[in-house]
Every structure is written in C-alpha cells, then in structure tokens.
C-alpha cells in the first residue's frame, strides 16, 4: 500500500506539489491522472526517495522509500524511461541493477523475455527506440518481482500491442493482491486500466476515489477530467 500525506514540494518560490494526499491500495490499480506539468512526476520522485519533500510524508508499506533495504524487491518503478547508459547492453544494465539488490542473475533473461526484449538483450541501449527503452525500464521494475509497482507514463512510446499487453499485465498484478500506481496524462489509458483514480492539477489533488465516482454525472472520464481541471483553472484566474 502507498500512502501519501500532505506532501509539499517547492522549486524555488514555485509550489509544484501542494498538500497532496492519496492512497493506493493493494489489489487495485490506482491511476494518477493529470495534464503534463501538474505535479505527477514530482510526487512520484518524492515517493521513490529521489527528491526530498518540503513537508508531508510518502510511505510504501508504512516506510519511506529511503528506509527500504534492497528496495527493488519491494517496489518496482519506472521513471524517465530505462535510465540505462547508452553504452551498456540491456543485459548489462539489468545485471548491475540485479546485483545492487541481491537479485539472482537468472531473473535478467526472464524479465527481458517477459517484456519482449529477449532477442535484443545483448544489443547496446544507445540503439534502442523509445518503446524499447520503456520496455527495458519495465523489465528493471519487474526484476525483484515486487509487491508494489510505481510507473510514470509507462505507455509512452509503446505500440498498441505493447499497450494492450501492459494493461492486461497490470490488471493481473493487481488481481493477485499487489499494488499498482500508474501515472498518465492520457485519460483513455487509465479509463480501461485503473480501479481508482487520483486526479492532480496545478499541484493539487482535485479528486480521488473509485473510477466510477469520478465519472458519475459525466458522459465519459474525459468529460469528468475536463470538468475537474477547468474548475481548477477558474479558481486560479
């Protein structure tokens, strides 16, 4: 379970995350929805211990990320693509990631096959497309067979086949009682994948709850989303 509570992040004088609270429960896919620049990545970066919060807490299984030992065995994450250095091979990248968390080397070919990169494991990452990079990032997230998945815009660059595969894969993960937090600016993607929705706009949570609650009274999730975020724009002006 992921619990984010009263999170605040400032960059200089600009507040990019404003008193953000939400919960991503086990056994459900939680969609983290918002336009680009709404504060999704900033929130996830704090959740993953990459950036520090100015106030508030972000806990995974009751602990801050930085307190986890061998965190990849608990939390798999995808942020900014794979992050693999371009001069390394896909296998080389996953091998050091596995070594850093005491994950057996045998997982490397397993996850490469799982994400459909089994044939290019020995190729250098410098020659990878955006979609291949995303797949490699997913492979790294799955190395430790983690209880919790945190994925930032995972469908970026995936072909329709890959998107469909990922949707079914994440649904299956949640069905086995695991926690999946998935951010996207694409409503259509989350409409078909998420159980719960957390909508963020201008750094603030404008709605959170089961997907049905968000869409009640609107023709579609898209209508609901624009109704929620437009209201926010009017407040600003």
């Amino acid at each position, binding site marked *: 379970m992921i619990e984010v509570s009263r999170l605040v992040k400032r960059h200089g004088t600009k507040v990019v995350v404003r008193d953000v609270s939400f919960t991503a429960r086990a056994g459900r896919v939680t969609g983290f929805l918002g336009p680009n620049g709404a504060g999704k990545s900033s929130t996830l*970066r704090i959740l*993953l*211990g*990459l*950036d*520090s919060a100015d106030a508030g807490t972000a806990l995974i299984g009751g602990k801050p*990320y*930085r307190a*986890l030992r061998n*965190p*990849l065995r608990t*939390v798999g*994450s995808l*942020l*900014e*693509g*794979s*992050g*693999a*250095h*371009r*001069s*390394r091979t896909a296998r*080389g*990248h996953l*091998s*050091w*990631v596995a*070594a*850093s*968390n*005491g994950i057996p080397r045998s997982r490397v070919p397993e996850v490469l096959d799982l994400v459909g990169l089994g044939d290019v494991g020995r190729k250098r*990452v410098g020659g*990878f*497309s*955006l979609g291949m*990079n*995303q797949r490699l*990032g997913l492979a*790294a997230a799955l190395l430790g067979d983690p209880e919790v998945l945190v994925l930032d815009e995972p469908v*970026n*660059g995936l072909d329709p086949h890959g998107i469909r595969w990922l949707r079914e894969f994440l649904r299956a993960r949640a069905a086995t009682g695991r926690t999946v937090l998935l951010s996207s600016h694409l409503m259509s993607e989350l409409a078909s994948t998420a159980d719960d929705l957390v909508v963020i706009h201008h750094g603030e949570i404008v709605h959170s709850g089961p997907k049905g609650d968000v869409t009640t009274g609107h023709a579609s999730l898209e209508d609901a989303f624009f109704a929620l975020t437009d209201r926010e724009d009017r407040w600003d002006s």
Partner: protein
Amino acid sequence: MGLLNAELRKLLSLRASLVAAALCLVAAPAVAAVNGNALRSRVAEGGTGPEGGLSAAERGLEGVMFAVVAGIVLGVVVMSSEYTANDGDVGGGRQIVATLTGVPRRGALLLAKATVLTLVTAVLSSAAIATGIVAGQAVLGPFGLAPWQAAGELGWRLPGAVFYCVCTALIALGVTTVTRNGLIPLVVLIVNSSAISVSLLLSKVTSWAKYLPDAAGIPLFAGETAYTEQLPPLAGATVLTAWTALGLAVGAVAFIRRDA
C-alpha cells in the same frame, strides 16, 4: 557486497575504462620506451647519462602521468555517466534514477563508488608503473637497470605514485559529484595535471602553492621537479590526503542533500 559488485560492473563496462586501460597499459610503457631510447642515444654519443641509480631508475616513472590522467578520467566518468541524459526522443532518462531507486542510501552508494574507483585506479596505475619500468629499462640497454633493481632504487616512490593516482581520482570524483557534468572537471583536471599546472604557476608567486593537492603530492614519487619549493614526502602525503578527504566530503554533502 552486492552494491560493490554493481558499482564495479558499472565502472568496468564504461568506455572510459577502456581509455584508462589504454593509457596505463599502452601509452605509459610506450612513452617510457621512447624516452629511454632517446636517453640511450644521448649517452651512447657521449652525452650526459643518468647520474646515479635513482635517476636511471626514474625512467619508468614517466608513465605515472598517464596513470594520473587515467585516474582522473575514471573518477570523473564514474559519476558524470550517472547524469548523462539519453536523447529526449527515447525518454531522456538518466542512470542516476535507476541507481538511486536501487540504492537510496546515498552515503553508502558514494562510498561504494569511491571504493571501486580506488581499486581500479590502484590496479591500473600499478600496471602503468610496472610496464613503464620494464619497457624504459629494457630500452636503456647497457645503461639501464634490471626491473627489480630499478624497483628497489625507487622504493617508497612506487606506492607513493599509486597513492598519488588514487587521491587524484578521488578528488575528481568529489568535484564531479558537485558539478554532475563531467566535461569541465575533465578538461580542467587533465590540463592541470599534464599541460599547464596551476599549482606550478602559483608557486612562482606564493610559497603557499606547495600546499595545493598536486604540488603536495608530486614529492611522493618524483625525484626532480620543476617546483623550487616543495613539502617533504610524508608531509605532502598528509596534505594530499586532507585534500582528498575534503573533496569527498564536499561531494558527499552535495550528493546526500540534493534532489536527484
């Protein structure tokens, strides 16, 4: 152990390691041989030869400068590679995200990087010195010494040279941890250690220059230097160690406190 294993894999699989190995295992002995050859021709034509055992033995130590540059390359790239962004059209990711999500304990991570850097630099600089001595003395022919004689003459200067290379590499790591970009530290540190030494220029102006890291460290291995005033070797080692500790400490504070 997993952490050290991971960092060692990362360092050794970078192209910079290949460059460093080439500097130490090819360039260092090659230059020692070229210089040895020039010296032998001079002596054979009746010019001034090496005066005494130490001077002759020092033929091999010319390779140290290549090991210093190799250490700087490794020290810079071991950290700058973490922050090199992939192209924007493939997601623009940086390795530091994968590194820190795997190991969020940043102090331990930096320590692991410093440890593998020390290990690799020590091995490569030892190899550069050893091959330099063998090549340099062999080319000197009748005027040269047997490698073990040369090593005996050099004595404490051998570990001194390795220590100097390791400290320089660690300072490069500390500086790059602060700058995150490798280009400026790489250019400044390499130019300073090979072409124009800032410390040497400053030493013409102030005697305090002898406390700068490279000036303090050079007496650890070099017999004759361009410096008019320098610290005794043990004091130099102490000062160089202090600079290294300072560089790593500043790097650690920046690494632990800043957002990734």
